[in-house]
C-alpha cells in the first residue's frame, strides 16, 4: 500500500497460469479483518502442518498486515519473489508462495519424508540412489518432484476402482511428452471399469489392450530415479496409491535392459554391462533349446570333441534329451519359486542346499548329464541379469517355446522360432509407438534423437 510496486514483481496469478494441470496445486485466500493474503503451494512437496502453524495461524493472530509481512520476511528461509522463473523454482522445491499487499513472498515449507522412504528391494544398484517408492502416493510424488524440478512436469489425478477408489496420478513433462500417447492413456483410464485396483502390475494389465501378450510393454519400476529418467525422455509415468511401484509408458524392448547403474559407471563399463545382459538373455533363451537340438537332431554342427563330451555325460541317462532338459528346468523353476515364498531367513539356504544336492544327486544317480547341470545353472543365473522383473519373468517363460520348437524341429525349429519371435516383437506397439526395431540406426542417421531410449 505504502510501497511502490516493484518493477519486475511477480503475481501469483501469473505463476498459477504456468502451473496449470497441477492436480496437487493448492490456492487459498486468507481473509481477516486486517486484510487478505493469497497462499499458493504444491501439496505433495510441502509440509501442511508447517504451513498451518507458521503461515496461517500467525495470519489470523496478527492484527496488522505490515507486521505480518515483516514476520514472513524475517522468517528464516523465506525470500521475496523477483522473477517468474525463480518463483516456479521455489514453488517446485517446496516453498509456499504468499501474496501480501501485491508483493509475493516465498516461505520455506519443504516436506521431507526421509524416515518413511525405504530402500529398493527388487531393483538394486551398487552405487547411486537407493530410495524406492513407498505405498503412499503423496510420498511418491514428493520423491519424483524433488528429482524433477521443472514447471513442465504436469500431474493429473484420477480415481480408479469402484470399491477400492485407488488414487492414480499421471505424470508427464509437457514439453517433451508425446500427446497421442497421453490421449490414448487418458481414454483407456477413463473407460476402465474395475472394482479393485491394488497393484501397479494390475493396472498395467488393464491398460494394455493386447490380452495375449508375451512380453511387457510398460515398465513397472520401484525406482524414482528410473521414473525421472524416463520422464525426461518424454514418457508418461503412472503412480498408484497403495503400491510401491510406478508404471512407465510407452517403452521399447531396449528399455528393459537398462539398469540405473549404467549411467553411474564409466561409459565403457556401462556398455560392457549392457552387453553382458544381452548375452545373458540370449543364453537363457537358447541354451536349453540348443542342447536339445544339438544332442537329438544336429550333433554334427558342433565339434566332435564336444559332441563326444555331451554324449559321454549322457551315457547313463535313460531318456531323450528333451525330457532331461524339461526335468532340470522345472526343478530350477521350483527352486526359484520356492525361494520367493520361503521366509527370508530360510530362503537362500533352501535354494543353495536344494540346488547343490539335487544337482549332485541327480548326476550321480545317472538321471541327468553333468553338462545339463552346468547348463541349467547358467540359464538360471543369466535369467536374473535382466534388471526389470516383468521382463525377466517373460524371458523365463519364453525359453520353453524355444525348447518346444527344438523338440519338434531341432535346429530349424529354433531358427523358425527366433525369426517368429523377432517378427512378433517388431509387430508390437506400445501405445502406438514401435516397440522393437533398430533404433540405433535411427540415432546414427539423425545424429541425435530427443530421447536416449534406443541407444544400444
Amino acid at each position: 500500500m505504502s510501497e511502490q510496486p516493484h518493477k519486475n514483481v511477480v503475481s501469483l496469478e501469473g505463476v498459477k497460469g504456468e502451473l496449470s494441470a497441477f492436480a496437487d496445486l493448492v490456492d487459498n485466500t486468507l481473509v481477516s479483518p486486517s486484510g487478505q493474503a493469497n497462499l499458493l503451494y504444491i501439496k505433495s512437496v510441502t509440509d501442511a502442518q508447517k504451513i498451518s502453524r507458521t503461515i496461517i495461524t500467525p495470519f489470523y493472530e496478527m492484527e496488522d498486515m505490515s507486521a505480518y509481512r515483516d514476520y514472513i520476511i524475517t522468517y528464516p528461509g523465506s525470500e521475496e519473489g523477483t522473477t517468474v522463473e525463480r518463483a516456479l523454482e521455489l514453488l517446485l522445491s517446496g516453498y509456499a508462495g504468499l501474496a501480501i499487499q501485491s508483493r509475493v513472498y516465498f516461505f520455506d515449507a519443504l516436506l521431507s519424508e526421509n524416515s518413511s522412504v525405504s530402500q529398493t528391494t527388487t531393483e538394486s544398484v551398487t552405487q547411486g540412489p537407493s530410495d524406492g517408492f513407498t505405498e503412499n502416493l503423496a510420498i511418491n510424488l514428493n520423491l519424483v518432484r524433488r528429482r524433477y524440478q521443472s514447471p513442465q512436469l504436469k500431474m493429473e489425478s484420477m480415481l480408479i476402482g469402484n470399491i477400492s477408489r485407488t488414487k492414480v496420478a499421471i505424470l508427464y513433462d509437457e514439453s517433451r511428452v508425446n500427446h497421442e500417447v497421453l490421449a490414448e492413456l487418458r481414454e483407456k483410464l477413463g473407460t476402465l471399469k474395475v472394482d479393485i485396483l491394488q497393484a501397479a502390475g494390475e493396472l498395467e494389465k488393464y491398460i494394455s489392450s493386447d490380452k495375449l501378450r508375451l512380453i511387457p510393454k510398460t515398465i513397472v519400476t520401484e525406482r524414482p530415479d528410473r521414473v525421472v529418467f524416463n520422464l525426461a525422455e518424454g514418457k508418461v509415468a503412472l503412480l498408484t496409491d497403495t503400491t510401491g511401484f510406478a508404471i512407465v509408458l510407452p517403452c521399447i524392448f531396449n528399455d528393459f535392459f537398462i539398469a540405473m547403474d549404467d549411467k553411474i559407471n564409466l561409459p565403457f563399463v556401462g556398455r560392457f554391462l549392457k552387453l553382458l545382459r544381452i548375452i545373458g538373455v540370449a543364453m537363457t533363451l537358447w541354451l536349453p533349446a540348443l542342447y536339445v537340438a544339438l544332442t537329438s537332431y544336429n550333433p554334427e554342427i558342433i565339434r566332435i570333441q564336444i559332441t563326444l563330451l555331451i554324449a559321454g555325460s549322457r551315457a547313463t541317462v535313460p531318456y531323450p534329451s528333451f525330457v532331461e532338459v524339461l526335468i532340470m528346468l522345472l526343478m530350477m523353476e521350483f527352486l526359484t519359486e520356492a525361494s520367493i515364498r520361503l521366509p527370508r531367513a530360510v530362503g537362500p539356504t533352501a535354494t543353495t542346499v536344494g540346488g547343490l544336492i539335487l544337482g549332485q544327486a541327480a548326476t550321480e544317480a545317472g538321471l541327468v548329464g553333468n553338462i545339463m547341470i552346468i547348463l541349467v545353472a547358467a540359464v538360471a543365473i543369466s535369467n536374473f541379469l535382466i534388471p526389470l522383473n516383468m521382463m525377466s519373468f517373460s524371458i523365463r517363460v519364453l525359453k520353453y517355446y524355444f525348447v518346444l520348437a527344438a523338440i519338434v524341429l531341432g535346429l530349424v525349429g529354433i531358427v523358425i522360432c527366433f525369426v517368429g519371435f523377432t517378427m512378433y516383437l517388431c509387430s508390437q506397439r506400445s501405445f502406438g509407438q514401435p516397440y522393437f526395431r533398430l533404433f540405433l540406426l535411427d540415432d546414427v542417421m539423425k545424429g541425435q534423437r530427443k530421447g536416449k531410449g534406443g541407444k544400444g
Partner: protein
Amino acid sequence: MAKPRYFYYLIIMNSLINIINFVPRELIDRRFEGALMSIVISVIVGTLFVYWFGFLISKFPEKGIPEILGPLMPKLLVSAILLFFAVLWYVAGATTLLSFVDITLRFISPDTGPYLVMGGFLIMVCICCRFDSLSLLFGLEIILAITLPLILYATFKALGNPNFSWDAVLQIGTHFWHAPDWMSLAAATFSFSGYINLIIYNRVFQNLKLKHIWIVGIEGFLVLLVTFFVPIGYFGTVGVERHVYTWFATADSI
C-alpha cells in the same frame, strides 16, 4: 512412416535370397555361354529398373498398386490384374518355401518329417503375414542386421579357403567376351527384383528418395559375382553342374 532406407533392405534381401534356388543354377549352366557378360549387363539393366520403378512409384506416396489402379481402371480389370499378381506371388512364395523345405531336409535335419518342417515354416509365415507392412519392414531390418555379418564372415571365409580354386575362376573369366544370353540375363536381374515388393510396401513410404541407387548396383554386382564364382571355385569349372542346390552343396563343403 518408413524411412527410405527400408527400400534398400527390400532389394538387398531379394538379392541375398537369390542363392537359395534357381539363380546360381541358371547362371552356372551357361558359364561358358555368356553368363559373365549377362551379369555385367544385368547390373546396368537391373539398376535402371530399380531406379525407374522407384521413381514412378514415388509419385504415389503411401499408395500400393491396388490403391493406385483402383480409381483409374474399371473394377473388373483391376481385380483381374490383382488376381494375376496374387497367383504369381503365391506360386513364387510356394516354390521358395518348398525348395526351402527340401533343402532343410537334405542338408540340415534329415531325420525330421517333411510335413513337420513344412508345417513349421507355414505357421511362421502365417503368423508373419498377419502383421502390418511397417512391422515387417522393422523385422526385415533386424533380421538383416543379424544375418549380414554372418554372411559377410562366411563369404570371406569361403574366399580365403586354401581349397578355393582361383584357377577355375580365371578359366571362367576367359569366357567373358561371349555374347550374353537371355536365360542368364533374366536370372541375374532377379537379384534386383526386390523393388517389386514396393507395389504393396509403398503404402508405408512417404517420400521415397533414390539418392543412393548406386549402392544397389554395386551390392547386386558383388552378390552375383559371389553367387557365380564361389561354387565354381569349389567344384571346378565342370564339377559344378552335378549339383541341384549348388550353393548349399558349396556351403556344406566349406
